[in-house]
């Protein structure tokens, strides 16, 4: 379990205007959760993500991962084994000259025995469907493939929590789909807790729970359906844009049509409309 206990964080160059990047964050993330964190630019999403594995330490409050405090210098490496992180730029996370060796990088760092490494590397590559490409050089892969390799690198560490900070922002639609499908599978089959940072409501709609950040604070949490029920004004306040499908549902229900205004996806919409026309 991951606990944010009254966490606040101030960026050093904001000393003058006392702007907190994170303010009084209190949240529990349970094993097996499939969560999206959404918010406008500057809402603190990335800062939040970096607190989970101790890349940033709170100035107030504590972040506890599996009963270990991120401020504890003895435990930080254990924490980073348990919390894997995927960043935005697929290129700037791959270190080695082949895929295989890149997955092994993390294992080498924590001193895993040679005999065990090979097994873990193969297992991780297989989970993301990249085993045949084990000898490929990173620059020859597509963006989606690169991010899958990064995910595999975390899996090989036997990570329990996977934090992804806007991992699809530089990918094409195909790559985006690849990543979303991969993490869904990992959450479902391997019970890996997913914490997914994004700008886009249409992505967040695919998760079980959404945390909405605004100016460093948690403004709202709930299922996508609950978030989608917010009024136009509230959504504007939170800088959230409904996906086109949900927008249409809202417009129709406002005109009196018997359709739930918080429809999540196209398939649901088609289903509901078929009952009416």
């Amino acid at each position, binding site marked *: 379990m991951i606990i944010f206990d009254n966490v606040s964080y101030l960026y050093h160059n904001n000393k003058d205007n006392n702007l907190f990047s994170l303010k009084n964050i209190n949240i529990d993330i349970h094993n097996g959760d499939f969560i999206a964190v959404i918010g406008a630019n500057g809402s603190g999403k990335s800062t939040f993500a970096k607190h989970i594995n101790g890349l940033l330490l709170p100035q107030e409050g504590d972040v506890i991962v599996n009963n270990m405090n991120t401020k504890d210098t003895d435990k930080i490496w254990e924490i980073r084994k348990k919390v894997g992180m995927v960043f935005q730029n697929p290129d700037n996370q791959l270190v080695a000259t082949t895929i295989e060796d890149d997955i*092994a990088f993390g294992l080498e760092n924590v001193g895993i025995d040679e005999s065990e490494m090979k097994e873990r590397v193969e297992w991780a590559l297989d989970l993301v469907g990249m085993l045949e490409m084990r000898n490929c050089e990173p620059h020859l892969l597509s963006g989606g493939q690169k991010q899958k390799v990064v995910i595999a690198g975390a899996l090989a560490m036997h990570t329990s929590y996977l934090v992804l900070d806007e991992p699809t922002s530089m990918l094409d639609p195909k790559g985006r789909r690849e990543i979303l499908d991969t993490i869904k599978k990992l959450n479902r089959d391997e019970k890996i807790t997913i914490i997914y940072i994004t700008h886009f409501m249409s992505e967040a709609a695919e998760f079980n729970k959404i945390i909405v950040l605004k100016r460093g604070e948690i403004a709202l949490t709930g299922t996508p359906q609950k978030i989608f029920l917010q009024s136009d004004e509230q959504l504007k306040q939170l800088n959230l844009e409904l996906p086109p499908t949900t927008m249409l549902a809202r417009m129709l229900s406002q005109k009196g049509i018997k359709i739930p205004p918080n429809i999540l996806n196209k398939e649901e919409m088609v289903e509901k409309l078929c009952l009416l026309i």
Partner: protein
Amino acid sequence: MKFIRNLTIGQYIHKESTIHRLDPRIKILITLFIIITIFLINTWVGFLVVGIYLFSGIALSKVNPKYVLLGLRPLLFLIILTLLIHFFTTQGEVILKIWILSITKEGLIRGFFIATRLFLLIIATSWLTLTTSPIGLTDGIERLLSIFKSIKVPAHEIAMMMTIALRFIPTLMEETEKIIKAQVARGADFDSGNIINRIKNMIPIIIPLFINAFHRADELAIAMEARCYRGGNGRTHYRTLSIKRNDKLFFIISFLVIILAFVFGKY
């Protein structure tokens, strides 16, 4: 951009051969000794011994010799320059006179001699890089350097730097091409003007490239830290290196060749 994507890192050509399977540490060490030998011997026979050795190695490696010649291309200019300098500046019996320059017999011999030495040096290093993968090279160098850990040689750090550099060369080359195109699209001209202008015109390429490289380094460092990287202490190795029978055999044969080269190579 597609062109660069298809190039493999370094000169490595993958084949299944005895030479490819040799331990990289042995290959690096032997190449070093061969290079030293090439510098020290000074007879044609000595060169011949080394030449036969190197070309047999290439044949055994199943790599197409044309790749070796391709490796010579960038340095062809240097070889020809060396030839010409020696042709025209060595004192002795004049064979040919062109305008105010004269070619001497001694110059010809000396020129070809030095050129052959250069040629062999290039072949020796090409042989190593064609048959050893980038990981093999960095692993081999790291293991060899770690012998000097006691005198604080940062073997791991050097190897890590080499690996990352090799990994990013194609990426940065692609980036350079993109930057050049973007600036040309804004009317930048890299072809005309004198030397000074041309250097000034490089600024719109060099600055974005450096900034790009620094950003990458920054992000990469954070990603590495998130993956528990903390320097070389306590690290294990994914790829194990072990000395096998072939390695020992290769070592002995190479040493015999080196001794032979010295026997015939010094007067």
